């Protein structure tokens, strides 16, 4: 190490208690940031997984324009066959075809407008979490014909229970009046009022028959081995679609633009809190370095007298801050990594979380995201904040005059 580096390192330990207090603040802040960011990213991953696995899937194939305006005639031809074919594509774990229409659902006592979805029962369980949310009766099964599952609030509104019949009246693909009677086989209770008020699913084959869809459906839903691959897989899936059918492959961000927005707005509020932490640490570094510079004014005056240029003095103070920041960064990341790895193995939970999560068919624990980003993003920001805080003390040195400085007490 050259003398400047040696000087910077030793200067740091002149007041070791003060240095350790500042390093301690950095380590605490860095550890906290590593943990919070890892949990935050982990919860986003869980949020995306849960939201997408509920219904949307990671990717969908639809007719061009169907996303903007859901028209009965904007269909995917030979949907079940296409779903089977797409299931063979690399990184695709499961696929299922769906058809959707609006219909009037009537029980003996009441009628409600509903959105009815035709699903492939055996495949739907692989792309959606709704089948796992049946609280009474059962979910649709392969071979079911005129069967239907309803959301718990919808069922309550219609005053039906498993075993009761519901009459459905709507408009067919060909414009004809479509009508059918289905038996309620199960009630879905997701805990989310919006879902429980709206969900109604029937077997796709029966749906196609009642609504004169033939072999058509409105979407093919794909679940991938990794949700992050979705944007990259869009061109691959698009290329495998039949030519001339005006079909498009859309990833989850296009299907659910609100989800990323929600994550973004959560990130902004979280980073505001992190920002407060980082500013506090930067102020602590500023205090340490300013004190350190002020009490060495005489010494700096001597160095200037010996021929050291003020810019080199400034660099010396910045070098001291770099050492300070690096100690805080390395210890903070190491400690943070230990905490994160522990929770990665055992999951993070708080009292009551498991019960609340179970109601929404969610995992009872959050698992942090262990990545270079989650480990280093916070500590590197703290490091940069500390460097920024040292700029002011360093700039003060540029104005230092040797004679005046040597007179300093």
């Amino acid at each position, binding site marked *: 190490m*050259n*003398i*400047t580096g040696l000087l910077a390192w030793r*200067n740091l330990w002149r007041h070791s208690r003060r240095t350790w207090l500042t390093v301690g603040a950095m380590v605490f802040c860095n550890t906290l940031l590593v943990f919070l960011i890892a949990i935050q990213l982990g919860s986003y991953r869980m949020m995306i997984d849960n939201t997408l696995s509920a219904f949307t899937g990671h990717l969908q194939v639809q007719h061009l324009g169907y996303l903007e305006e859901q028209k009965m005639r904007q269909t995917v031809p030979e949907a079940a066959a296409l779903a089977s074919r797409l299931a063979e594509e690399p990184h695709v774990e499961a696929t299922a075809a769906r058809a959707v229409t609006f219909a009037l659902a009537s029980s003996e006592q009441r009628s409600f407008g509903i959105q009815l979805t035709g699903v492939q029962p055996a495949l739907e369980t692989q792309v959606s979490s709704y089948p796992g949310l049946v609280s009474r009766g059962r979910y649709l099964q392969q071979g079911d014909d005129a069967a239907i599952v309803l959301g718990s609030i919808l069922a309550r509104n219609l005053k039906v229970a498993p075993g009761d019949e519901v009459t459905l009246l709507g408009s067919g693909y060909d414009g004809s009046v479509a009508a059918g009677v289905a038996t309620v086989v199960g009630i879905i209770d997701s805990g989310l009022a919006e879902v429980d008020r709206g969900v109604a699913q029937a077997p796709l084959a029966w749906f196609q028959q009642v609504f004169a869809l033939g072999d058509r459906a409105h979407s093919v839903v794909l679940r991938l081995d990794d949700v992050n691959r979705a944007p990259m897989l869009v061109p691959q899936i698009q290329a495998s679609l039949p030519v001339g059918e005006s079909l498009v492959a859309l990833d989850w961000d296009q299907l659910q633009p609100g989800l990323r927005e929600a994550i973004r707005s959560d990130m902004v509020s979280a980073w505001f809190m992190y920002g407060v932490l980082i500013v506090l640490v930067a102020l602590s570094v500023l205090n340490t370095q300013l004190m350190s510079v002020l009490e060495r004014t*005489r*010494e700096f005056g001597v160095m200037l*007298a*010996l*021929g050291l240029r003020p810019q080199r003095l400034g660099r010396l103070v910045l070098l001291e801050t770099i050492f300070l920041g690096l100690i805080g960064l390395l210890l903070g990341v190491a400690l943070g990594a230990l905490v994160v790895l522990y929770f990665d193995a055992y999951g993070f939970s708080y009292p009551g979380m498991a019960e609340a999560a179970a109601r929404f068919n969610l995992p009872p624990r959050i698992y942090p995201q262990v990545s270079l980003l989650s480990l280093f993003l916070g500590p590197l920001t703290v490091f940069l904040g500390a460097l920024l805080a040292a700029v002011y003390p360093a700039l003060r040195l540029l104005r230092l005059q040797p*004679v005046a400085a040597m007179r300093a007490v």
Partner: protein
Amino acid sequence: MSAIHCRDLCKTFHQGEEEITGLDHVSLDIEAGSFVALVGPSGSGKTTLLNAMGGLDRPDSGEIVLGDTRIDTLDQGELADLRLNRIGFVFQSYNLVPVLSARENVEFVMQLQGVGAQERAARAEAVLAEIGLEGLSGRRPAELSGGQQQRVAVARAIASEPQLILADEPTANLDSHSATQLMELFVHLNREHKVTFVMATHDTRVMRYARRVVSLQDGRIESDQRTPEAVE
């Protein structure tokens, strides 16, 4: 040949509304290799003149020429380079860097000059040995006596091989024995290295060694005497 030439230097300081004369039309020519003491009571202008000669402070008017370089017109960066390469300083309070060892303090200036690590270390050890500090090079200032610290400061001043060494009250904090040893060292270095020494002092022990004594009073040169009877 002149080591440093000062002509008609004026410098005033302001303390509140009061104006204090630091230098009042001071002209002085110091030959290369000479051993000069600037003497006078506190406030007479010794340190002000020394600072001006060392490029640490600018005179309000007048000119200073070091060797063949006019220094009162140089900018801060050029003055820093000049101090680094051509002038050595010895201060009253030693002013060593407390976190560096004796050898590292000596090396520090050489590193600023861009001297390579091996040569730096060798020269530092040689200089420390020359001033009688062999075996103490690894000690930090706090582990050295006042006299030893001042010797390290002298080693730091001569390690950069300057033309001129300016010493401000170098013996003020030393006991009589250490002061004598230091002055003998100065005389040795002046003789062996042909370095010009200019010391500001009101220590009569120092004056005995000077071959020229310039006396200042109220910022003016009161007397300028050659002393052939100086202690050798």
